[in-house]
């Protein structure tokens, strides 16, 4: 330090709770890094009451992309070594919080797999958490046979009849019906319940949790929620065609309903939503049996229809509707009585291009919307150049003006190393977006690089298309601004790059890239 920083250190006057509030706006890794700023920041981080221990934070970049299944490879010495390091870090931190009597409000632990020798240590952590009256507890621990009984032991034991738990989240944890019932009876203040893929839990009965606001369940065959008058949000996900059943009769204030993978009939669906007159947000995914939807609501604001493969028609009479997000055009016909502010159709492109007609259809489809449309474009595959030889986009006729749209959200799910250029040419032949954005930076690295190169390093006066009457997009693009945005709150920040190679060093995790295009 050369002491060139002038003026008083503003952060010195902040009370500890303000530091903690700032840390809570950051992702865990970002928050941990602030400890290097000064001793005051280290103290703030060391007393931060929200503990978030996720194994993949410790994995090197190459490993952090691995799926849960890969990380289970207990025998891989590298993974095992990192896991041990992680567990030691958690243990050290937990002991320090206990020793220094630092409060803990939230605790999250995510480990894919652990050796049984760690069982007694995890037992000790949960004991510490319960002593500290942790309010939010989220555990994601695969294959952990005794965790349910452990939680029951700590949460339900002792002389205190009521434990002030507000949020319980369990994923891949083994817990049975009796254990979870005991926990509910001891924790009547629960506001939020997330039970995902919990083995041993086939039936969930929730009753008399008067504070309950949010319930997210996945792969539980039977869900019954009774006497939860304040329930606002219910998410029910079923995968692999598992049986399902749910009953949430006594929650008239439900605002947010998300159902995924439920094969329900039109009748069932309409009977269901008739019971929730205050629904603001409705989302259906992979509900394959539904064919026709007819909704009338003055309250509904947001409607999402994704991958409902047999859905033919949706009639929505909702004057206050703000956004509609859906796919499967044009086989799905959507009609609304008043146009919502935000249409968000999503095109899933599987790679089958039959020639020029595919693109003409896409363009006609885009033209059927007004300019304010936000189009999601998911590319699962794209034909190689040689298969596209009879679709020379540069020579494709410009039928009339290319439609301008507000925002194109591009997501690519396969390696497009060789065909980035043809993808970009096709997209810009079909529409001219005012904004183009990509969310997953790591996955789409090649495409982003290519886009940057094509958009930023283009010539002012392109010499292509000289002999042709119709000119490609390069001749219409006037100006490009590039920037990054936070995935969490969509806050945008322009980036000032000299060349496309400056892009990646200036991008952080949890960010996406956008291009603002002036045509």
């Amino acid at each position, binding site marked *: *330090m050369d002491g060139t*920083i*002038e*003026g*008083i*250190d*503003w*952060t*010195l*006057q*902040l*009370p500890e*709770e*303000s530091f903690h*509030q*700032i*840390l*809570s*706006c*950051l992702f*865990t*890794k*970002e928050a*941990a*890094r*602030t*400890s*290097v*700023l*000064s*001793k*005051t*920041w*280290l103290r703030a981080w060391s007393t931060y009451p929200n503990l978030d221990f996720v194994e993949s*934070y*410790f994995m*090197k*970049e190459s490993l952090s992309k691995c799926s849960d299944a890969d990380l289970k490879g207990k025998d891989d010495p590298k993974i095992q070594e990192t896991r041990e390091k*992680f567990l030691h*870090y958690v243990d050290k931190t937990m002991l320090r919080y206990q020793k220094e009597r630092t409060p803990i409000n939230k605790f999250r632990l995510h480990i894919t797999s652990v050796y049984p020798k760690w069982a007694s240590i995890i037992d000790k952590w949960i004991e510490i958490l319960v002593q500290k009256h942790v309010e939010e507890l989220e555990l994601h621990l695969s294959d952990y046979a005794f965790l349910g009984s452990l939680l029951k032991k700590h949460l339900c034991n002792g002389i205190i009849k009521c434990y002030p738990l507000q949020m319980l989240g369990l994923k891949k944890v083994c817990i049975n019906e009796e254990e979870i019932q005991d926990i509910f009876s001891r924790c009547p203040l629960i506001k939020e319940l997330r039970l995902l893929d919990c083995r041993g839990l086939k039936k969930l009965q929730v009753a008399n949790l008067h504070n309950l606001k949010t319930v997210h369940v996945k792969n539980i065959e039977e869900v019954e929620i009774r006497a939860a008058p304040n329930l606002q949000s219910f998410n029910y996900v079923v995968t692999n065609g598992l049986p399902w059943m749910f009953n949430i009769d006594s929650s008239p204030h439900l605002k947010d309903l998300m159902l995924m993978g439920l094969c329900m009939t039109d009748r069932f669906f309409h009977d269901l939503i008739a019971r929730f007159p205050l629904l603001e947000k409705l989302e259906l995914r992979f509900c394959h049996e539904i064919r026709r939807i007819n909704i009338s609501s003055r309250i509904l604001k947001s409607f999402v229809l994704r991958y409902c493969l047999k859905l033919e028609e949706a009639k929505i009479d909702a004057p206050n509707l703000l956004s509609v997000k859906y796919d499967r055009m044009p086989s799905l016909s959507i009609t609304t009585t008043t146009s919502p502010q935000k249409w968000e159709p999503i095109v899933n492109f599987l790679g089958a291009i039959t020639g020029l007609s595919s693109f003409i259809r896409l363009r006609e489809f885009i033209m059927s919307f007004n300019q304010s449309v936000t189009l999601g474009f998911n590319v699962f595959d794209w034909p190689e150049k040689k298969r596209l030889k009879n679709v020379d986009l540069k020579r494709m006729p410009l039928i009339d003006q290319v439609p301008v749209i507000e925002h194109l959200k591009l997501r690519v799910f396969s390696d497009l190393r060789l065909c980035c250029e043809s993808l970009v040419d096709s997209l810009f032949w079909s529409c001219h977006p005012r904004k183009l954005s990509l969310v997953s930076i790591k996955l789409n690295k090649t495409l982003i690089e290519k886009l940057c190169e094509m958009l930023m390093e283009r010539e002012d006066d392109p010499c292509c298309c000289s002999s042709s009457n119709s000119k490609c997009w390069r001749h219409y693009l006037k100006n490009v601004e590039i920037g990054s945005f*936070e995935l969490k*709150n969509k*806050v945008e920040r322009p980036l000032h790059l000299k060349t496309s190679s400056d892009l990646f*060093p200036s991008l*952080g*995790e949890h*960010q996406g890239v956008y291009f603002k295009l002036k045509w």
Partner: protein
Amino acid sequence: MASSIENNNEKLTLKSSDGEEFLVEKHVALQSTLLQNMLDSDCSSADVIPLPKIDARTLALVLGYCKKHADASSSKQGELNSFDSEFLKDMDMGALFNLVLAANFMEIKGLLDIAAQKIADTIKDKPHQEVREIFHVENDYTPEEEAAVREENRWAFEGFP
């Protein structure tokens, strides 16, 4: 007058650390949990309420925020959101930290949330020396100490320049 009719336009006076007095409508003051608690207890609204930690410039900003939020109806959430983002947009860091202190002291949750978020956004992905300069943070570590803290949290620096 001896009338005890509830008056919606009832006002109270707040006094900043540098002695400036602000006349505030009661419904605006209620945005602050601190003032709300004071009014709920035996504190009379005829008294001048001193705020010894908040200077006039900051208090004016805080009251501007409170007025906007007190006057807007709940249906105008979109309008309030754009007001919030404009409110802090070009604010200098010194004023922003003063605002956090004031919002914390007066217990104005919404203001504290947006101000803390703004500070957090400034920290994100910036090298430490740059953050220290922006916030005027005095680095009180010896190089050895700093290296030790970094080593302890090495997992958090994975992939960070």
